[in-house]
């Protein structure tokens, strides 16, 4: 009996210990304000570690912690559900941002002076992402990315190929490349998300930027707006490998790096992966010319990283001081050097060479947000495009798109239409 009691006691004690042991709450250091940033790009962790170090070395009254965890989106959600909000979150300008604004998780930062230096086009992009118009600004755009068509510069120079500026020129170019026995494009559609790359860069040219918002308001349908996008997307794919769904993103990057194709329609984010296979490769990019009139073409660019102060943050002033530090020109330059990104701030920055072909669009602000930033991820538009690529049935694709959109956006559509009834339509 004694032994029994002893063992039960040990078991009970170990369980109790497990309950009590956990680390005590953080000590309130007198005079020093803690600011925590949780940002979603682990690939930029080295940069953010440096920023953190430099900031803390120069500031006595604020202690900054920047975490760049793997799988940050899961971590953010579990922390939100615990009401354990970081002071600032670094996220992308996509539908999650729309949700967060809608859920009142983010604070209005319209009184942040640094916003004056941010390019208006990126502020507009964020404003458009709000499900229903809200007063205020809810994120500070930091850097953007751009997607179009990457090309093998050396191969182009060797054959004397010209950068196409219209759809016809693009198709002619593809025919010419093909006639020389080279594959024009590579694709990695087994990784479904890559299906969105050619899709998005064509959609910005061919469909109105506010298509999704108009559909939500009940004013139009995707069938009316996306037919040309779908058809031209299929045409592009026909210049790729025979069975594009067989290959993955990594296969496509490797193939393009090894000169198996002349072009690869993907965002600038793919460049590091390509260069890892072939470090000496000369890569440049151009804007996907979806229209026959070059004037109508636009660069596919969206906010890749923004900083948003959470509504729960108790030290907004100190948070702004941190944002000021992040927004300093030399820090932004360091980030874009590290990540081949496009700055959202006005000013002279040196862009990565693979963005040369897009520079004029970036400078003039001729850019349009990714359409997929409006797509709810659970609708799996990427998988639907993959299905389109396999079946080549545009009508079925469009019908399903419209039908599924209604299903997956039911709550949003109701919210938008209620808002419009109250306030009258935005135009």
């Amino acid at each position, binding site marked *: 009996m004694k032994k029994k009691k002893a063992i039960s006691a040990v078991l009970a004690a170990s369980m109790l210990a497990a309950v009590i*042991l*956990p680390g005590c709450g953080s000590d309130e250091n007198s005079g020093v304000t803690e600011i925590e940033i949780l940002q979603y790009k682990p690939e930029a962790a080295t940069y953010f570690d440096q920023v953190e170090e430099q900031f803390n070395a120069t500031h006595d009254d604020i202690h900054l912690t920047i975490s760049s965890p793997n799988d940050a989106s899961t971590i953010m959600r579990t922390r939100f559900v615990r009401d354990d909000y970081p002071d600032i979150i670094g996220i992308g300008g996509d539908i999650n941002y729309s949700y967060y604004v809608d859920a009142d998780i983010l604070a209005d930062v319209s009184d942040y002076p640094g916003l004056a230096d941010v390019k208006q086009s990126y502020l507009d992009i964020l404003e458009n992402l709000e499900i229903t118009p809200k007063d205020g600004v809810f994120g500070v755009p930091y850097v953007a990315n751009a997607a179009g068509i990457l090309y093998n510069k050396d191969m182009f120079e060797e054959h004397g190929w010209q950068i196409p500026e219209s759809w016809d020129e693009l198709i002619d170019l593809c025919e010419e490349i093909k006639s020389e026995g080279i594959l024009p494009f590579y694709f990695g559609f087994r990784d479904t998300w890559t299906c969105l790359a050619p899709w998005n860069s064509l959609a910005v040219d061919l469909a109105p930027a506010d298509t999704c918002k108009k559909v939500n308001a009940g004013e139009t349908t995707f069938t009316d707006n996306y037919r040309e996008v779908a058809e031209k997307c299929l045409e592009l794919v026909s210049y790729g490998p025979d069975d594009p769904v067989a290959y993955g993103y990594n296969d496509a990057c490797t193939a393009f790096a090894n000169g198996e194709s002349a072009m690869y329609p993907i965002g600038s984010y793919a460049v590091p992966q390509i260069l890892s296979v072939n470090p000496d490769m000369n890569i440049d990019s151009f804007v996907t010319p979806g229209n026959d009139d070059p004037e109508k073409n636009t660069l596919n660019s969206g906010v890749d990283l923004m900083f948003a102060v959470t509504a729960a943050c108790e030290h907004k002033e100190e948070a702004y001081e941190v944002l000021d530090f992040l927004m300093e020109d030399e820090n932004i330059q360091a980030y874009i050097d590290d990540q081949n990104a496009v700055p959202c701030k006005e000013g002279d920055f040196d862009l990565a060479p693979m963005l040369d072909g897009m520079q004029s669009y970036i400078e003039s602000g001729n850019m349009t947000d990714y359409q997929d930033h409006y797509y709810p991820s659970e609708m799996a538009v990427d998988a639907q495009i993959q299905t389109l690529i396999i079946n080549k049935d545009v009508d079925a694709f469009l019908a399903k798109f419209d039908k599924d959109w209604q299903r997956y956006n039911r709550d949003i559509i109701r919210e938008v239409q209620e808002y419009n009834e109250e306030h009258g339509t935005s135009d």
Partner: protein
Amino acid sequence: MYEKMKARVNWPITILLFIGLITVAFPLYMTIVIAFKQPTEMTNSISGILSLPAHWSLSNFAQAMELTDFWRSLGNSLLVTISTVVLCLLLHSLMGYAVGRNKAHSKIYNLIYLFIVSGMFVPFAILMMPLAKQTAEMHLDNWAGVIILYVVFYMPMNLLLYTGYLVNIPIALEEAARVDGASTWRTFWKIIFPIMKPMHATVAVITALAVWNDVMTPLIIMSGKGQNTLPLAQLTFQTQFGTNYNLAFASYLLALIPIIIFYVICQKQIINGVVNGAVK
């Protein structure tokens, strides 16, 4: 029993098993070759990917160890895995005994058995958010919480294993002990627990493997605030737009070694199990 040891080696089966090994050897060969190659050696051609690396250098392994903070992550993984396995062996075998010896004649115990075993089928996704909240409220958003959750998560499977094993252990053994005046508690630790050795080894292997590879639980419970386990640290190799397969493979090969050693040790226990003799 011992004359069996002298039985001659069954060569046909040995040969068949070695031939079947190709299904394991081929993927393992690819893993090793890629772990030694540089990213520039990656290609899409079959001969290219199967060729030996240009240089046999351990630099990928060194770099992978640095990136994952290997020794510390390994320490964390070992700590969590060992604690979980020890707790599971003690608690789950007890539970298996209590439930297993009663479920045949007691409705309540049978119900408890089905109740816990069906816990195995709860999709983890539905528990994630509530658990994240609950562990934070209970101040269990740390290693202790992770270990407790593992003990709970693997309870259904281990209960199934222990009660299944118990069916083949004759009750006569315990009754003999009881006649000698031993309490049920004492009988369990003195007789049943040692007899279950092969099952302990099996449970230990299966539980250890599940814990060793698990990413989700520490991710959800500690929400990036604690230190990494090996699989958490290994997420570093995969970012949204690129994966360094060479470093990742090197790292996975390193993570493979401790668990294989553990398995080999446990296997000996399974084979040397005393059941055959004891049951007689």
